[in-house]
């Protein structure tokens, strides 16, 4: 199980998903049409480390967060 959190304006409750890879996660998340636009422009962190590699493995208990476009200041 991994938990997935949707930050900032995405405005969706956290989910628990039984996925073992980013590929599986991606497939699960694309089932929600409201997420499509956010998946296109959000970054991904696993256990609070940003990831760039689709081959990164997911382990049981990992926390994944989706970070949509930012604007601080």
């Amino acid at each position, binding site marked *: 199980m991994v938990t997935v959190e949707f930050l900032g304006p995405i405005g969706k409750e956290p989910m628990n998903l039984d996925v073992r890879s980013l590929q599986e996660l991606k497939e699960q998340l694309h089932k929600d049409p409201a997420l499509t636009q956010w998946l296109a422009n959000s*970054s991904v962190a696993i256990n609070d480390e940003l990831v760039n590699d689709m081959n990164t493995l997911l382990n049981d208990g990992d926390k994944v*967060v989706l970070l949509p476009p*930012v*604007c601080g*200041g």
Partner: protein
Amino acid sequence: MLELFEGRVPVEKTLEKWYQANKERNYGAFVSFVGTIRDEEGIEGLSFDIYEPVLRSWFESWQEKARKDNAIFYMAHSKGDVLLHESSYVAGIFSPKRRVGLEMLDAFVEDFKANAPIWKYDLKNGQRIYAADRSTPMEGAGLLK
């Protein structure tokens, strides 16, 4: 050092505290930036969400860079609502010489705008509206596209 405040950043106290903490430490230059909410586009203020764990690692990576030049970064930012003419962001750097400070603060603030995990909302007619048009995808965005 990174400090987050509910609502506006107390600018004078913050600058004073940073200056006091460092004046005896032989830095020759202190460059700082204060961002204040402008009255424009009919907004009543801005509001911010922050994802603190990633913000702290982002900040630490800049602190690491600064350390190589014997410099040190400070930053304060608001969470939640900040009204017109209040300040939401203060950044500062102490460095031995001014050139390093000016250049690093500039690069820091640019990267902050692009990569710090902070989300901005306009407060308008009592609503909180995501500032989509002014927001930038972070590094690595679209991985799960």
